């Protein structure tokens, strides 16, 4: 069932049964005291378009709920303390070993508390899924241009959620105080210490003295269960509120305009579907958690600064940072003015901050370049915005190369190639990959637009060959219906901005820069088909 948002709410009159009487009375009681009916009326008619890609954000939301539930269970048994204890639990290869209370209690959760291991694995798998779903959701929003006015701020809030989720993941990963996470923390410690002037002091502040110190777990615990979740929930609330205020975007289609939303209202069908969907996500996570080990801290052992394991990597969402560190060529640190400048670390910090900054502010950058101040509620098909799609592909490639670099050692052993070969290939790909991806994607998009134009004008090739009385052979083209054609031809046509002098009659440098960017964006383009062309095309 699909309805449009502009349709008025119809009161349905039904014969009231005794059960119905109670419901009515209860609803009335609550409404008279809270005036909640206004909210229900508004929210209940919130329309959700029915394309699958619009549900990825929901996946992230539901995984987050699973994380909250399982995390609450874990807090009952976890001891956020680095006090030394001797382990006497069930896991044989650690019996009698001195370790922190945090690690010991995590072992107890895994082996001696009923359901503890399942909850730990649910929590961790859900965290991986949470951030993966956020990533996919962001890619959907980016490639369909759903971040354009009026949704730029909501994109930014979503980006903040993404960063918060990564921070949540990293702090949580460090809590068990096992060898793997300790090694990861040491890498972060090195990265922080690489910051000029203040690095060492920040590191001392974080770890309470020289690494590893004895206060980190307690500190991270407060951040992980209190501070970050509070900010995350608040930002999530704003994110959802803005989604309701701005309404959903939708793909172009018959009856879908910039002024309406076609889809299913929350109440009753969508709410039921979404509720079911939550349990499906929960089920998928529990199924994975019950079958597959994640973060087997018992094999990693307690943290001790001396050992380090081969194949130490962070969880996937921090992988791009680890990969960036692995790709830095040797010899990038030097001594100047009596200070060591660790550009092997500083360059990584700069690259990551610039990359994340571009992601965060992309909507504003594109808005400025295009000079487009209109509201957009119809999403683009990625091919119809070739330059943006190409930029996205370049960004994805850049991220993917960094990400892959985090597993360089595993690629070397599993594909029987040299570690140096992997690193050097990825170093080259980090520069060349995005350039190649940009050009290939842009050309593919333009080619697809040409194909769409051809199909819209002349229809599909039917494969039916007809011989005309004169002896000529033609292939019969199947024409599209108007509905199908609408999907292909309705997109915005941008042209490069003209350089215009400002009020003082001057052309500023910024304006020149902007127009050159605009030319870069829109120089290569395929114009949408005009009405005239369609009418002409029909005669073929």
């Amino acid at each position, binding site marked *: 069932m699909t309805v449009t948002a502009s349709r008025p709410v119809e009161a349905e009159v039904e014969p009231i049964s005794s059960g119905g009487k109670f419901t009515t009375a209860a609803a009335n009681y609550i409404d008279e005291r809270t005036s909640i009916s206004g909210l229900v009326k508004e929210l209940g008619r919130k329309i959700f378009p029915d394309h699958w890609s619009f549900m990825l954000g929901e996946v992230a939301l539901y995984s987050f709920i699973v994380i909250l539930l399982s995390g609450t269970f874990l807090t009952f048994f976890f001891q956020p303390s680095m006090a030394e204890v001797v382990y006497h639990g069930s896991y044989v290869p650690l019996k009698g070993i001195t370790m922190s209370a945090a690690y010991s209690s995590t072992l107890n959760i895994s082996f001696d508390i009923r359901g503890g291991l399942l909850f730990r694995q649910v929590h961790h798998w859900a965290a991986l899924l949470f951030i993966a779903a956020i990533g996919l959701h962001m890619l959907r929003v980016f490639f369909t241009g759903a971040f354009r006015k009026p949704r730029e701020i909501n994109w930014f809030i979503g980006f903040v959620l993404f960063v918060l989720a990564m921070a949540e993941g990293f702090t949580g990963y460090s809590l068990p105080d096992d060898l793997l996470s300790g090694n990861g923390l040491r890498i972060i410690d090195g990265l922080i210490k690489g910051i000029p002037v203040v690095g060492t002091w920040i590191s001392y502040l974080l770890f309470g003295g020289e690494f590893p110190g004895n206060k980190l777990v307690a500190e991270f615990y407060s951040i992980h269960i209190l501070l970050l979740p509070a900010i995350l929930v608040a930002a999530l609330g704003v994110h959802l509120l803005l989604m309701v205020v701005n309404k959903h975007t939708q793909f172009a289609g018959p009856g879908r305009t910039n002024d309406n939303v076609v889809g299913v209202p929350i109440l009753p069908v969508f709410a039921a579907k979404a509720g*079911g969907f939550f349990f499906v996500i929960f089920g998928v996570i529990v199924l994975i958690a019950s079958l597959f080990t994640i973060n087997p801290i018992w094999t990693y052992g307690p943290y001790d600064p001396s050992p380090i394991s081969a194949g130490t990597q962070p969880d996937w969402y921090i992988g791009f940072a680890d990969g960036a560190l692995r790709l830095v060529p040797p010899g990038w640190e030097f001594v100047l003015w009596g200070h060591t400048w660790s550009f092997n670390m500083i360059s990584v910090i700069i690259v990551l901050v610039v990359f994340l900054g571009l992601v965060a502010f992309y909507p504003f950058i594109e808005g400025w370049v295009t000079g487009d101040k209109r509201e957009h509620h119809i999403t683009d098909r990625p091919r119809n915005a070739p330059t943006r799609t190409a930029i996205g592909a370049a960004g994805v490639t850049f991220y993917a190369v960094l990400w892959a670099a985090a597993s360089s050692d595993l690629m070397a052993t599993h594909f029987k190639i040299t570690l140096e070969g992997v690193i050097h290939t990825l170093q080259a790909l980090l520069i060349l990959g995005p350039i190649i991806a940009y050009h290939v994607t842009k050309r593919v998009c333009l080619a697809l637009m040409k194909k769409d134009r051809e199909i819209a004008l002349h229809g599909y090739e039917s494969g039916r060959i007809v011989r005309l009385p004169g002896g000529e052979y033609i292939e019969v083209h199947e024409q599209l219906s108007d509905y199908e054609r609408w999907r292909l031809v309705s997109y915005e046509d941008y042209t490069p901005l003209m350089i215009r002098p400002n009020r003082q009659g001057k052309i500023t440098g910024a304006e020149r820069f902007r127009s050159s960017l605009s030319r870069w964006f829109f120089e290569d383009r395929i114009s949408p088909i005009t009405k005239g062309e369609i009418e002409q095309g029909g005669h073929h």
Partner: protein
Amino acid sequence: MKLTNKELPQHMAKNSSTATRRTRSRLVKSKGRRSPLATIALIVIGLVTTGGAYALFSSTASAETQSSSAAANQSSVDAGKKLFAANCATCHGLSAEGVNGVAPSLYGVGAAAVSFQVGTGRMPLANQGPQAEQKPVQFTDAQVTAMADYIASLSPGPGIPAKKYLGGNDDAAEGAELFRVNCAMCHNVAGAGGALTEGKFAPALSGVSAEHIYEAMVTGPQNMPVFNDKNITPAQKADIITYLKYLDKNPSPGGIDLGNLGPVAEGLFIWIFGLGAVVGVTIWIAAKAN
């Protein structure tokens, strides 16, 4: 992550403590109460006693690996010599002296090195590469023993480990601790293996026999350093074996272990199967009923 590239070729990896040299004192004829040679004789006796005692003490630590090789009989050595000439001499030289730039000398590598290299199928080498790859074992146990006896007969070296260290029923916790400190940096904390430089690698340790683990520690094959008996005592080696056997016998309590490869395997799994399943569900939910 740093990778260490400690190259210790086998010919350098001989156990110095086993290089026992015995000097023989000649009988000094004594006619009078004090001969002018008495002083020299005393010095010689003193040197022999100290040297012998030193050799005895320092070799007790490695004596554990010598026991079985001492029992090697001559027929086994002869059989081993023939097998060596037929299968190994091309590279290692007719009398195992090594060929410069091709293969190391086998003097002093001991029976343990032969048992490990041939017993795991690494030798005879299939082809020159960054390091010897494992392949199906080409010889029977008796043949491997014969070759080991032959090599051990040439020059002393680490022998086949005694059975009492290979039972896998010692202290797993101590073994796990030693493994994390000494082995995990190359072999990965779960023994899943890891990459070294220039195409070399530390192999996975699951399913490796206790004897071969012990022999690898005392001989240091490929790029592995030697962990001699003073570095890690035989009892500690037995603990390490116990831990590795524990990992072999007890599958991960958390379910399928995804190769024990850590977060990369987990990330790959959640993106392909986790997110894949979830996206499948979203498509199903959003599908229009026909």
